[in-house]
């Protein structure tokens, strides 16, 4: 009791000051309109975030399950049978279950967590708050965007419980494997549900993306020119553009796949003999699907990483008390990445029999992406150089982001070169590469965002000590898990194998696989600690006592602690300067709302 009193004694100081700001702007919403079918972008952001967290726990738990198989292929775990039933007879996961887990792990984390959970959360939360708008361009479409995501989630969740199991052909869902129910038990109803869920997901993404773009272009407050926007907004903008242009292509690919499955078409099928009979399908190309898939699939990895980049840029500047270095170069490199993202998809297909001459262009364009990426990394490092850095959990995760982005990005230079890819394609090297660069990095960006804007969302802080423990265990764990995988990949060890013991070329890593699985379990437990911290802090966290706890310049910290729908009780503030006036002219920070002084130069 006395402790609680200590924890919350400071809040009174500020309350008096803020109280008269409370105009009658808040409508008296019913529970349904406030928490369920809310049209307030802040509530929709929380909905995306919490749904994303739930999916992240499920998706990460799946990885623990299949890592058990990889680390301890001969052991039996009776408790597995009690949760998975006939998918883990005798306490050992079956190959069918293993592939279903792998597929769902990929789908859930790539789409539901790192797309919807990441850009869905922070685009919604930050775009109106940082550009100075009362809400999104269309709050209703925004609400629909979440509920289509929710429907997609329901369908995907349902697919986990059908008799023949969920889709199990890998998250890329390549036909003919995914097109033929006879090819795999997971390609029966599981794939139909998967495609349905993903179609709903694409609708959700388009509704969200169009809204983000139109809000950023049309609803900026007075004085907020495009080049005064924080980099978060720029990154959300490019993310939305990527999504709007590439998701429809994915959907078209899915529709053709559905027709091949049920309408007797042959878009992807040709010359197939399966389950004892030759199929009549002729003339289709299984490679066509891969083109359609990767035309989204590659921009998708930037859809995942750009929001993280934006948030990291913001957090690093704030915690270093320095302007982001090379603001225009940062925008330029985001733009370059956005353009190149559409021109590199076939680097996933170097060994499909793709015309080698065509492949050469994709090598060139792929390696070109390293240039804007390098610019960003150097600019982040220069941002912290000669700063005065405060190590909040958010800034630590941002530093961790830069570290993992470097490590994972550099191996991209290996894989983007087709002559190396021809050896490393579909090995553990690829697993290590993309998990570090878009899995761990994107999560670090997301964590940075959550720790940093949690006070904005809930008016309370998350527990710092738990945040530090979370960061250090995750950073060390991530490197311990993925760094040695590069070596497994160099040995040619293929990904998506249930068991390596019968292979003389790949069975030398038994001890290493066990070690990796062990670390995975520890890191997973640490993430649960974070989840606990998150939910506990919503209700019991230290209360926010000042409007601007991080002493940031951007607009979201000018709203009341518990802003109602509409964000600012009075007029929307006018903006006079960019978002990065830190340590300028001897002042710690100058808010964007402060007019330029008579002798002051704009950045």
């Amino acid at each position, binding site marked *: 009791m006395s402790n609680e009193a200590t924890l919350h004694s400071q809040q009174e100081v500020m309350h008096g000051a803020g109280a008269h700001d409370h105009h009658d702007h808040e409508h008296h919403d019913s529970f349904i309109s406030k928490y369920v079918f809310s049209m307030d972008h802040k509530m929709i952001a929380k909905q995306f975030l919490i749904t994303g967290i739930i999916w992240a726990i499920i998706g990460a738990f799946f990885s623990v399950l299949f890592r058990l198989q990889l680390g301890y292929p001969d052991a039996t775990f009776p408790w597995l049978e009690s949760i998975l039933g006939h998918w883990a007879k005798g306490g050992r996961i079956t190959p069918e279950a293993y592939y279903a887990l792998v597929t769902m792990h990929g789908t859930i984390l790539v789409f539901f967590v790192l797309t919807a959970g990441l850009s869905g959360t922070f685009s919604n939360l930050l775009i109106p708050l940082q550009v100075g708008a009362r809400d999104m361009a269309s709050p209703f479409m925004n609400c629909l965007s979440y509920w289509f995501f929710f429907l997609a989630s329901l369908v995907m969740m349902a697919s986990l419980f059908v008799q023949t199991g969920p889709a199990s052909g890998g998250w890329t869902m390549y036909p003919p494997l995914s097109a033929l129910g006879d*090819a795999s038990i997971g390609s029966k109803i599981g794939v139909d549900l998967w495609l349905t869920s993903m179609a709903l997901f694409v609708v959700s993404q388009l509704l969200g993306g169009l809204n983000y773009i139109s809000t950023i272009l049309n609803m900026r407050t007075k004085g907020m020119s495009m080049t005064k926007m924080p980099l978060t907004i720029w990154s959300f903008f490019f993310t939305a553009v990527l999504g709007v242009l590439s998701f429809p292509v994915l959907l078209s690919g899915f529709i053709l796949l559905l027709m091949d499955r049920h309408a007797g078409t042959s878009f992807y099928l040709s010359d197939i*003999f399966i389950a004892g009979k030759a199929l009549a399908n002729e003339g289709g190309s299984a490679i066509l699907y891969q083109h359609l898939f990767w035309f989204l699939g590659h921009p998708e990895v930037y859809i995942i990483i750009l929001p993280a980049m934006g948030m990291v840029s913001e957090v690093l500047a704030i915690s270093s008390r320095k302007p982001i270095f090379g603001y225009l170069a940062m925008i330029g490199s985001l733009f370059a990445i956005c353009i190149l993202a559409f021109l590199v998809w076939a680097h996933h297909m170097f060994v499909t029999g793709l015309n080698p001459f065509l492949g050469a262009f994709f090598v060139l364009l792929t390696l070109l992406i390293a240039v804007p990426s390098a610019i960003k990394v150097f600019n982040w490092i220069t941002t912290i150089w000669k700063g*005065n850095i405060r*190590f909040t959990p958010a800034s630590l995760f941002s530093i961790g982001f830069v570290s993992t982005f470097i490590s994972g990005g550099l191996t991209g230079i290996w894989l983007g070169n087709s002559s190396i890819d021809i050896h490393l394609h*579909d090995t553990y090297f690829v697993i290590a590469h993309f998990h570090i660069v878009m899995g761990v990095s994107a999560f670090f960006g997301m964590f940075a965002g959550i720790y940093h804007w949690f006070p904005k969302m809930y008016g309370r802080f998350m527990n710092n000590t738990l945040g530090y423990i979370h960061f250090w265990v995750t950073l060390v764990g991530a490197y311990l898990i993925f760094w040695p995988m590069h070596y497994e990949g*160099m040995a040619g060890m*293929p990904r*998506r*194998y249930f068991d390596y013991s019968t292979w*003389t070329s790949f069975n030398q890593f038994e001890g290493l696989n066990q070690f990796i699985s062990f670390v995975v379990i520890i890191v997973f437990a640490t993430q649960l600690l974070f989840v606990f911290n998150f939910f506990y802090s919503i209700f019991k966290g230290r209360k926010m006592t000042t409007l601007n706890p991080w002493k940031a310049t951007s607009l979201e910290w000018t709203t009341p602690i518990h802003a109602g729908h509409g964000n600012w009780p009075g007029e929307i503030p006018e903006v006079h300067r960019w978002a990065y006036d830190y340590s300028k002219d001897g002042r710690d920070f100058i808010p964007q709302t402060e007019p330029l002084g008579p002798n002051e130069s704009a950045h």
Partner: protein
Amino acid sequence: MSGFLAVLVVVLIFIVIFQIAKASEYVSILKGEKKAREQSNRINGFLLIAFLVLGLIGVYYCNDLLKGKILGESASVQGEGVDTLIYVTLAITGVVFVITQIALFAFAFKYQEKEGQKAFYFPHNNKLEVIWTVIPAIALTVLVAFGLKHWFQLTSDAPADAAVVEVTGKQFNWLIRYPGKDGQLGRKANNLIDPAASNEIGVDWNDPLSKDDFQATEVHLVVGKPVKFVIGSRDVIHDVGLPQFRLKMDAVPGIPTTLWFTPKFTTKQMKEKTGNPDFTYEISCDQMCGAGHYSMRGVIVVETQEEYDAWVAKQPTQYSLAHPDAAPAAPAADAKADSTKTVAANIK
């Protein structure tokens, strides 16, 4: 029971961590925000630099531990180029890795918040930015140039004297077919596949070229002689992965692909080189193909010309296996008739 205990222990650890975390929050409030921040800053600053040092040592240690477990020298002539490119790329990316990681963590440590320290207002510097745009661009140009040179060599046409082996993927094994004496594979079609009649590949027996084709359970290759794989699939997409030769090519139903290379060492030599008596050249399936994907293993035996010739002599033609009723004398007569037809076909 032990599972229950394990969960209990984990929960207890959670509770302890949580209590510590909560207590530290109270302490920081009592101490004052500024003081608490200074303290946690010092701790985290130290941890950052410790992570950098231990991390770099760890990278070295990991390499020491695992470098013996990766593949060693490339077993094909073409793979040498792949390895060279890997070393060049490793050198360039390795240098960048070490420099940037050191800069990142050392700056973070050095410029942690200190009493009286002011951040330096440094919004941009065109010269610096141009430098670090141009240097990566040059390094990448070098890598692209090297890479494409090797790429066009790897994907060039096989030499005319290359042996031909057809590798067909199916769930979940590889079907190997040799063209026989005429060096040409007989026509095949998926609707002719009939496992019951020893025709797993769907060879058209009416095609005279098919008569001398033979199938095998292992791929046999002659050391030092180029070989061209003609790769296909009869159901879903597979991938012929040849880790020791550093090559890989998808097997796509309906779209034949090819791959050629020159093996450098016989299997026997590799056993000696690696000191592993169980050494085998393996074909791994590298494209997810269903529940048995992980077991889709093929074996390649690289041997001398004499050993190879002896092996070939022992292989019955698939035609004779598929037509057990045909008189043993028949193939010879057929072969004669065939050769005239083949010639005719070639002239056309």
